[in-house]
């Protein structure tokens, strides 16, 4: 198995607070990896660091595409990270609320297309073709996540679970080889969670995209992930297969009182 994302020694300080303390983490192509830990452990901060939204205090981060092209992503801007093949969703949904569902997905493809201002104004055949392909592809993407019936709705008018799935569709539209999901099941009911489970598996199996997942729903985490990393107070306290994690004493201590072998 070859690595897609390699993070070593990642450290992030906010003033005096050390939110991440030398974290090492690897996601291989074809894997679904989970990052778990109590609230405030630093999981979202980890995502923000590797996607270029925060500038980490120390550490090394690399992306390796399926073709084997490696890029060091330290200091890259968020859009450059995305261009290099890593896309994400947000824990607190950040859709483009006053744009339609389809447009949200179309935005995702932005970095793979070229048309500029002159193209927009004069609309040469090349741009027309690009645009109509974009619309079709975006619609297909919506079908994949089961949102095609909302295609012309404003994003803000979607039910909660659908908004989460739209975030995934939008991220997928950037054509990533690794997808980061920040608590995708938060606020979903059992039925929606089940559909999400299937969707994530499909993304990995059919699209060949590897996934790094932050999630509190242990049932989902245990059933989906190949490997799990556990963080607490910014430190990695355990790493292993779902079976190993379930019985790890450090993990049980961190989650004292919470039900992890659900």
């Amino acid at each position: 198995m070859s690595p897609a994302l390699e993070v070593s020694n990642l450290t992030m300080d906010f003033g005096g607070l050390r939110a991440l303390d030398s974290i090492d983490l690897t996601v291989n192509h074809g894997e679904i990896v989970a990052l778990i830990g109590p609230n405030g452990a630093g999981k979202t901060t980890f995502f923000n660091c590797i996607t270029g939204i925060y500038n980490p205090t120390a550490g090394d981060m690399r992306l390796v595409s399926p073709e084997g092209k490696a890029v060091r992503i330290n200091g890259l801007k968020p859009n450059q990270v995305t261009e290099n093949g890593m896309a994400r969703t947000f824990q607190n949904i950040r859709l483009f609320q006053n744009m339609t569902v389809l447009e949200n997905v179309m935005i995702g493809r932005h970095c793979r297309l070229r048309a500029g201002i002159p193209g927009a104004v004069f609309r040469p055949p090349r741009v027309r073709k690009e645009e109509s392909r974009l619309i079709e592809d975006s619609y297909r993407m919506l079908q994949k996540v089961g949102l095609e019936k909302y295609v012309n709705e404003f994003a803000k008018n979607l039910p909660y679970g659908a908004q989460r799935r739209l975030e995934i569709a939008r991220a997928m539209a950037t054509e990533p080889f690794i997808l980061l999901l920040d608590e995708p099941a938060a606020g979903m009911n059992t039925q929606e969670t089940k559909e999400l489970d299937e969707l994530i598996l499909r993304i990995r199996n059919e699209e060949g995209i590897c996934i790094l997942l932050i999630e509190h729903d242990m049932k989902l985490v245990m059933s989906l992930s190949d490997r799990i990393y556990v963080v607490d107070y910014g430190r990695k306290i355990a790493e292993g297969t779902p079976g190993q994690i379930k019985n790890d004493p450090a993990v049980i201590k961190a989650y004292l009182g919470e039900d992890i072998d659900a």
Partner: protein
Amino acid sequence: MDFGYFFELFLGGLTRGSIYALLALGYTMVYGIIELINFAHGEIYMIGAFTALIVTGVLTLMGWNKIAILILASLAAVVYSSAYGYTAEKIAYKPLRNAPRLSALISAIGVSLFLQNYVLLAQTSDFLPFPNLIPEFEFLKPVEDIVRSSEIVIYATTAVVMVALTILIKFTRIGKAMRATAQDQKMARLVGVDVDRVISITFIIGSATAALGGVLIASHIGQINFYIGFIAGIKAFVAAVLGGIGSMPGAVLGSLVLGWTESFFTGYISSDYEDVFAFIFLVLILIFRPSGILGRKDTDKV
């Protein structure tokens, strides 16, 4: 170098700076708490000056004595500016608490435009002479041609206000509530802080401070019109940003720096571009050090 002239410019800068400071404190407090650039803050100061002018005019014609007039006029200015500040917050900002930041800023621009034209229409667009309310102190006679007593009063007022506000924020209950609200509104509400009340009080205090500035500068310069608030307000905002917005000592420091820069530049080089400075400062500071001289650098939470 002519030292006397230098000293004169130094004091002139100190005077300007002190007035900017009285305004900048209000900006910084409001920004610190609800992250709103209160575009209409300068108009509140203008309203204070106008109220004082009106009260002075009426009382002078009734033949009152000067000290009584000074006290009553300042009091009226403070009361009315606070009332306008409070009302503006209730009408134009409170309904926008959860709206995008730019909506509140546009609303504040609306308040500024409205108040300017309200005074213009209800009073006049002409410059009105403002009587010098501050008496000439006997003990200042010897230094009279270096520093006027109105200037001394300006320095003293700014110093007192700054100390009083610092004590208020650091040591009183309401100060604590203000700091809590500034940190995190939601959390403050959860631990029982009446956030709406805190914000109202912040506006009232800021407006009262601005009113003092209005009365002092009007009687120092000797004339006012409906437009004095706009440029003063912008400059005070620049001063607050220069010092590090949200920080009270920063606001005073930034105001003094701006005051001196303007004073020395106009004194030594040219008075044509007096008003450009504030803007150049603003642009440079925001580009190179958005957190200001004394401000902290934050990472926006995502």
